[in-house]
């Protein structure tokens, strides 16, 4: 990263990451703490041949990005909890239609209007299960301004590569945090574009079965004519109620993420080389606090390390088992009441595993002291 670092906000880095990844269409509806992304896009996109649209609501925002994406333009939106709830309907359509797009959710406190300006990590399960029907989703959670940028690029790359919507699960802390960051030069970070059809227009089918479960996607306005539907459909994209087709389609939606699991799932470790007895498992903003806690634990004479779940969905099961199984104690700090990530870890490591939850859900940040309290070191 060769440019001079500048002080940049997480939300700004997300907008920059999207543009770097090639996004040229943003449709959204303003909401704290995500609005800076919309504002940034409204300034930048017109200058580079892109389009910024402010829609009448978040339902329309996802509709518009799906329409634009099928026209061959990388597209995205940004919101927070209340808007993300509204987006679920058309997010389901994007999953069913296998349409690449990115949705940024800068999480805030809820339920409902909640603490509108305060951070939270309580949308973990809504991101996975918020829509009706059988489906799978990719979600990435940044912990720094640099990760806001890089994971936004990665979100676009995954969405293009696998023809799926991808969620960037940020939170108010990282979204509004300012850090020094140097924007990468073009070409420095990999940018992926969707697979285009190579068959003749007569032969093209938008859901042609493929060994890797990712069918090439044409664009409206090209020589290819194609049909995309929210209904159950076969390879040709027309609604079809056959039981066999339904099985094939639902398999397809899940298997495309399953077979590419290793490419999708990313975790990072900190002070984990000496098999520490205490492992903090984190995602998003709490990662930084856990690092401070790990250092403090080591200063107090106990080996501790951090496993950061960069990808939260699909859940990094292998990594949690690998780093979690040998730990004596696992600590999971989360800005939610229910321990949405801790539950997943408990499910994997068993109900006898010593998993200590640190939950704060009052809009205040979890501190290293909050974490140390459950350890009695």
């Amino acid at each position, binding site marked *: 990263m060769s440019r001079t670092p500048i002080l940049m906000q997480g939300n700004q880095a997300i907008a920059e990451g999207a543009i770097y990844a090639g996004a040229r269409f943003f449709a959204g509806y303003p909401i704290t703490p995500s609005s800076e992304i919309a504002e940034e896009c409204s300034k930048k996109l*017109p200058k580079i041949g892109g389009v910024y649209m402010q829609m009448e609501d978040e339902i329309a925002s996802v509709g518009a990005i799906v*329409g634009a994406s099928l026209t061959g333009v990388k*597209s995205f939106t940004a919101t927070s909890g209340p808007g993300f709830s509204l987006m679920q309907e058309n997010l389901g359509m994007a999953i069913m239609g296998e349409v690449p797009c990115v949705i940024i959710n800068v999480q805030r406190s809820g339920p409902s209007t909640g603490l509108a300006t305060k951070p939270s990590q309580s949308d973990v399960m809504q991101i996975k299960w918020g829509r009706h029907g059988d489906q799978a989703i990719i979600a990435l959670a940044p912990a720094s301004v640099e990760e806001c940028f890089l994971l936004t690029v990665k979100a676009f790359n995954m969405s293009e590569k696998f023809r799926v919507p991808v969620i960037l699960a940020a939170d108010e802390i990282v979204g509004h945090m300012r850090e020094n960051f140097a924007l990468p030069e073009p070409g420095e970070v990999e940018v992926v574009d969707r697979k285009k059809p190579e068959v003749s227009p007569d032969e093209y089918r938008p859901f042609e079965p493929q060994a890797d479960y990712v069918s090439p996607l044409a664009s409206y306005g090209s020589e290819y004519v194609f049909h995309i539907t929210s209904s159950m459909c076969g390879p040709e994209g027309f609604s079809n109620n056959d039981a066999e087709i339904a099985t094939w389609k639902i398999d397809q939606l899940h298997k495309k993420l399953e077979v590419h699991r290793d490419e999708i799932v990313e975790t990072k470790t900190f002070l984990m080389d000496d098999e520490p007895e205490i492992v903090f498992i984190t995602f998003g903003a709490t990662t930084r606090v856990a690092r401070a806690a790990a250092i403090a634990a080591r200063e107090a004479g106990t080996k501790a390390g951090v496993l950061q779940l960069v990808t939260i969905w699909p859940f990094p099961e292998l990594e949690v088992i690998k780093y979690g199984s040998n730990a004596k104690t696992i600590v999971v700090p989360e800005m939610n009441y229910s321990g949405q990530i801790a539950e997943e870890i408990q499910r994997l490591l068993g109900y006898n595993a010593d998993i200590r939850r640190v939950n704060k859900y009052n809009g205040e940040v979890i501190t290293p002291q909050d974490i140390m309290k459950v350890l009695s070191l």
Partner: protein
Amino acid sequence: MAITGEKFLKKDSLPHMWCQGCGNGVALSSLLRSFERLKYTPQDTVIVSGIGCWGKADDYIATNALHVTHGRALPFATGVKAVNPDLHVVVLMGDGDGVTIGGNHFIHAARRNIDLTAIVVNNYNYGMTGGQFSATTPADSITSTTAYGNPERDFDICTLAEAAGANFVGRSTIYHGRLMDNLIKEALSKKGFSLVEIISPCPTHFGRKNKMKTAVDMLNLYKQNGVTKDKYEKMSPSEQSNAILIGKLVDKDAPDFNTRYEEIRQKAI
């Protein structure tokens, strides 16, 4: 050579799913003939449809298509048009889809004056789900969920579109075939948001429950009650309440969204 619209018909999807006497097939033929008249191609046309009996029309059309969620067709269509102004974007919605669940998108698409054509087939009820009332069901009508009559007032779709800023608004019935053809063709040719409302029989539900036993009864009613603007304006309020105002109702040339966006964009660069 006669204009049939046949090259736009996806014949391998036939027979269609609509009931006998349903107006949807008639509306579809008119639309496909207009495509042929205007020399559209399957490549340069995108149909966006919502959910409902009329929303299934995309299954029978051989152009690009995007069949989406109930009430949301206009936002999807807006995204298509915003990034590719060269495409002909045509949005097919029922009265439930277009102006009931999708009412908010409808007024904002018209306000934005996004260059697309909405064809709303108004059969005064939710056909697909068994004939419940919609926002266009006339007061006192009997439907599956207004067993004793509809207590609510109905929307006038054309007035709504006009008030929200549409460049072109017209209404026809299935009976007035030539008018329907002309309105659809003009709406497609118009830059900006254009709306054609087509009053259409749902004999299976709305007709049967409201003492119009067959589609023919319903067409006769359209024939009797369909009046153009000049006649309509001379009618008394009570006569007007039974009439169906048909014809071209709005024809303006306000700049469309893409044109305005480009103008503003010039200030950015």
